């Protein structure tokens, strides 16, 4: 009965490895996107601040 334990162990290990890899993929992508969004929001705030200063100066 126990001679096929290796197959059982392999199947469950692969399931959790694949799920873990997919969670890591999503987490890293989300973190990178959030960093890019923060950088773009800063850039947009600079640009809109500049244009409002230009309008008030003129």
């Amino acid at each position: 009965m126990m001679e096929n334990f290796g197959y059982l162990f392999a199947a469950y290990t692969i399931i959790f490895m694949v799920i873990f890899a997919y969670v890591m993929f999503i987490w890293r992508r989300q973190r990178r996107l959030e960093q890019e969004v923060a950088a773009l929001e800063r850039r947009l705030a600079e640009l809109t601040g500049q244009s409002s200063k230009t309008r008030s100066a003129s």
Partner: protein
Amino acid sequence: MNRNFIAMLGIVTALLMVAALYMAFLYVPNEATQGIVQRIFYFHVPCAWVAFAGFGLVAIAGALYLWLGDQIWDDLGQAAAETGMVFCTLVLITGSIWAKPIWGVWWTWDSRLTTTLLLWLMYGGYLMLRAAADETPQSARVAAVLGIIAALDVPVVIVSVRLWRTIHPAVLVTRQGGHGLEDPRMVATLLVAMAAFTALFAWLLILRLATLRTRARLNRLTLEIALAEAGD
């Protein structure tokens, strides 16, 4: 999506998964003929269930995108296809690992296996199309149509064990009408594993959808910056 809800769903998923693992390894008895390797089925069948649910969701989201044209349905379709592919891949791998000691081969061109492989290939094509094409409404419409057509294979996979001569075991309902799990502990274990994988699928789908919504926000910001720079 509310971060607290995502965290709560993650905790519920982890608890259900621990319960399913406990039942699959320590609670349920060995199956009389297949022995210990039959325990693969307690995670193999739920993987198939959530893969089919994911691909069904792709078809529903695709139909809603074609009808309403709202970006959220396109993002939901993409997230469901990707998450469904993860579980469909696990179905093929774990099925193959089970087949080796039971059938003596890693793979055979059985109707259930072949139609499942066809499903995997079609959604693989769907995701490659999405990765290669520009993010335009036209490519989203093509993806929606492809997602709906590919989902037509899901009922074929389900009924394949009834339609054609097959050696694949019918776990839930046999061709004779009864179910393949005679011991109530086997049924209980399968149900808990089904609940665990349903929660896991929902959690992964929400996480992946969140990244797609963040990317859409990034695209909007890029456009706003380009317009602001052009205005200066």
